[in-house]
């Protein structure tokens, strides 16, 4: 097992403590804006911690995706809903708490089977992993083993990952539309309905009438569900 020097050990304990503090702060907060921002902070702390574990490629991805883009995407999603989370009754917290406790116990139980950090005899560092590290220099002439494994030795897997990202983008585009014009659903942030998307496409103008009638039909349905005295059977 690799023995850490004291400053690095202190730094890692510090990172873990900060992650814990941020996680607890997220749990206590009701403002969704602050929660999204703290999730970005959490990702950035994770990235810093990965650097101290010598996993620079993972840290890079975490910083760019977790702290950067996903924070913006979460903000974009948050702007379409309310700004504050509704407080949950205690009764509804018991189920998730039970699941979390069971999961925590299971993970601590499994911890005993994990190899020590930097263990040269662990499954990752023997077998095919060691083979990649040894043969990259002779077969690829590349200094970065991670790139060689990702793009060449494991090219199939990366192809799959690329397709997954493509599918994610495709799914969102199919559901929401690139110009926000798919379907008739409109966001109602803070209970205020929002005007039509800022730039409705020209094609929609010709079909404006059927859209309007559909919207008019939907409105009473929504009111029914809000006020049961109107005779809503749902």
């Amino acid at each position, binding site marked *: 097992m690799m023995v850490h020097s004291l400053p690095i050990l202190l730094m890692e304990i510090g990172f873990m403590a900060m992650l814990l503090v941020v996680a607890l702060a997220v749990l206590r907060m009701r403002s969704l*804006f602050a929660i999204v921002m703290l999730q970005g902070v959490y990702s950035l702390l994770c990235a810093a911690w990965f650097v101290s574990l010598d996993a*620079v*490629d993972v*840290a*890079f*991805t975490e910083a*760019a*995706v977790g702290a*950067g*883009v996903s924070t*913006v*995407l979460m903000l*974009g*999603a948050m*702007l*379409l809903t309310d700004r504050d989370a509704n407080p949950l009754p205690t009764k509804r917290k018991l189920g998730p708490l039970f699941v979390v406790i069971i999961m925590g116990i299971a993970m601590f139980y499994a911890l005993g089977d994990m190899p020590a950090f930097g263990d040269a005899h662990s499954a990752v560092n023997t077998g095919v992993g060691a083979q990649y590290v040894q043969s990259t220099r002779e*077969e*690829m*002439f*590349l*200094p*970065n083993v*991670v*790139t*060689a494994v*990702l*793009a*060449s030795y494991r*090219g*199939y897997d*990366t*192809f799959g*990952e*690329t*397709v997954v*990202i*493509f599918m*994610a*983008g*495709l799914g*969102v*585009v199919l*559901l*929401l*539309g*690139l*110009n*926000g*014009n798919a379907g008739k659903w*409109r*966001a109602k*942030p803070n209970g*205020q309905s*929002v*005007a039509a*998307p*800022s*730039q409705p496409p020209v094609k929609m103008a010709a079909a404006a009438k059927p859209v309007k009638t559909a919207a008019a039909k939907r409105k009473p349905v929504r009111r029914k569900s809000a006020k049961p005295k109107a005779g809503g059977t749902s």
Partner: protein
Amino acid sequence: MNQHLLLQVVSKMMIPLIALFGFYVQFHGDFGPGGGFQAGVIVASSVILYALVFGIEAAKKAVPPSWVRIGMTLGVLIYGGTGVATWLLGGEFLNYTVFAPQSTHAAGQHWGILSVEIGVLCTVTFAMLAIFYAFASRMPDLSGEDW
């Protein structure tokens, strides 16, 4: 708009640098940390920053949604096409050695890795932009005090 003047001036200087750093990460990925995934996210974030500061309509003029639709697909096609090209040259799927079989310093591997990384860059950049455009286009225009 005037209340964002500082942000606009600073972002205008930052955005080209962010995009340039994205391409550095892309093409230096063989030698240092990074690669197509990280570079794609960084390039996309430069466009997203532009959209946040100058408005979604300005961003859609700079990077039209049609590019996003095509670019997202093109990336997967470049990656898959590299595999098909290795097939046609007589190798296995994604076996890049057939690009330069006589090379003594694995030039075929380098070309293959470069090609698939460009495919990854393309898909990641435009998929991130697609998701951002889809959400941001439905966003209400916020006045300053709304925050």
